[in-house]
């Protein structure tokens, strides 16, 4: 094909792509810019939302971290997401190993049972869940919230990991067992290393879901020192403050870890979230 013609043809594609890129980036850019402004620069005129700050006011970030207690919230969120992710991967890989590699008649039923969990809307469980947690005095308890996040994210991880484990050749296990390999070594030394791609995918999306969640935080955490980052940010935004710059800074602080994870593991995050969605 004539090269010039080809370039001309792709022009509308570039235009469309650029338009959507601008629509996509604008809210984030607007928040970054606003996070460095003072009230005057934010509100002085009808169009000040579109102006640039006169200087980079990093003190807005300092204020968000201190007054909004966001440093603590960030640590809480990373701790809760990290622990839940670890538990999800441990428990899901264990049960997946049995379902995918050991041929029991019940395995299919187990798999269908877990598929059910992916289809259940979380809100249906809220009232009984709150009743249960209150009966156990489980409000404001790290272990409780970690166990809850683990449970609700496990079905998806099981589906992802079982799918991958099943694709590994069965002859692998047979020769290993002939060599005297027991079940724990078969799981830990042979099957897990071969399933790492699926396990890391499940890990990344679990971490992302837990970090981004608001609902369980709102329901089960009222102690400010235990707030997750989404809860802390929302509270900081809703508090009666006089300066708005730190509020925008708090949004950026909240999203930054996710942006970093995405930029580090782009392909993995994209395919993982898509696989997670499709499994639903």
């Amino acid at each position, binding site marked *: 094909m004539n090269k010039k013609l080809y370039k001309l043809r792709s022009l509308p594609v570039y235009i469309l792509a650029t338009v959507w890129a601008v629509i996509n980036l604008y809210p984030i850019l607007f928040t970054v810019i606003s996070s460095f402004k003072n009230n005057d620069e934010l509100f002085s005129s009808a169009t000040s939302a579109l102006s640039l700050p006169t200087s980079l006011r990093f003190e807005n970030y300092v204020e968000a971290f201190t007054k909004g207690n966001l440093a603590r919230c960030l640590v809480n969120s990373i701790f809760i997401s990290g622990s839940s992710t670890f538990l999800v991967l441990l428990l899901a890989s264990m049960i997946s190993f049995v379902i995918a590699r050991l041929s029991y008649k019940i395995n299919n039923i187990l798999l269908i049972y877990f598929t059910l969990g992916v289809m259940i809307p979380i809100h249906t469980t809220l009232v*009984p869940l709150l009743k249960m947690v209150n009966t156990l005095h489980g409000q404001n308890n790290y272990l409780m919230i970690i166990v809850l996040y683990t*449970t*609700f994210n496990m079905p998806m991880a099981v589906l992802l990991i079982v799918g991958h484990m099943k694709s590994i050749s069965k002859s692998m296990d047979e020769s290993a067992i002939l060599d005297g390999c027991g079940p724990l070594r078969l799981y830990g030394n042979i099957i897990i290393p071969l399933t790492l791609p699926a396990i890391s995918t499940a890990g990344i999306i679990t971490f992302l879901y837990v970090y981004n969640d608001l609902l369980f935080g709102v329901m089960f955490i009222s102690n400010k020192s235990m707030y997750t980052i989404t809860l802390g940010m929302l509270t900081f935004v809703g508090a009666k403050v006089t300066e708005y710059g730190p509020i925008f800074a708090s949004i950026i602080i909240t999203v930054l870890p996710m942006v970093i*994870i995405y930029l580090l593991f782009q392909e993995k995050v994209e395919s993982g979230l898509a696989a997670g969605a499709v499994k639903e």
Partner: protein
Amino acid sequence: MIKRRWNFHLVAVLFVLPAILLYTVLLINPVIQSVRMSFFSWNGIAQSPLVFAGLDNYKELLQSGEFWRALANVGKFLAVGFLLQMPVSFILSLIITSKIKAVRFFKTIFFVPVILPITAISIMWTFILWPTGGSLNSIMQLLGMQALIQDWLGDPNIVSITIPLINLWIAVGLNMIIFSAGMVSIPEELYEAAEIDGATGVKKVWNITLPLMKESIKIYSVLCVTGCLKVFDIVYVMTSGGPNGASDVPATLLYYSAFKYQKYGFASSIGTVILILGLAVSILINKFVNNDELNN
């Protein structure tokens, strides 16, 4: 086949038990409890008993204008989902599977909203949509489009469309990836053959890409319907269902009925309806897919 030895049986039991126990007690059990509670009334105090109410909660649900309005709002999410979100996702996936330069760059930017916490996105947009001094209205003022300036989240007639549009902004990135997975699986030769027959860009998309993407479109449909039934965070953060319930969806109605008005039985009946609608839609569309495959 693996010879079953006692140590394999033991490990199997120990490996299955923790996951099954947690899942059954904390996820399946609450679902069953929720269905059961929808036939009772309860005041929310852990020690106080449930009082049998028969179908009262469901009667109240069907007679409450709030519930029908919440369902109507889901209808608006669905309308935006199918009339706008699906074409936009489809066009974006055409862009990121095309041969233009900087595909990776665009793909990354298009996907970013998917990974951000909805809480943060909702706050960002709330400030942008602020009626006075918010950047959307400021831009319209600058462009001389004063007639289009709105109170995007405060006007009860507009808010139930504004929020589905923000939802579109969040969701298209993921749907773009789902569509593009279907797109790249279409063999290149089909397009080459069509080019020889003189088909141009738009015609190729219409005659080859679209018909071969039935599967992706069905996946999208299930995701879109179940997703719309489950919308919560964005409404909770942006408007709390307001003004005056105008942007309520079933999940926020459930949340406020239970945790603000202590109508736990009523809330459970909403939960049960969401559950049944969601499962029914998944099963119906899946059945539809299977039948279609049998016919081909």
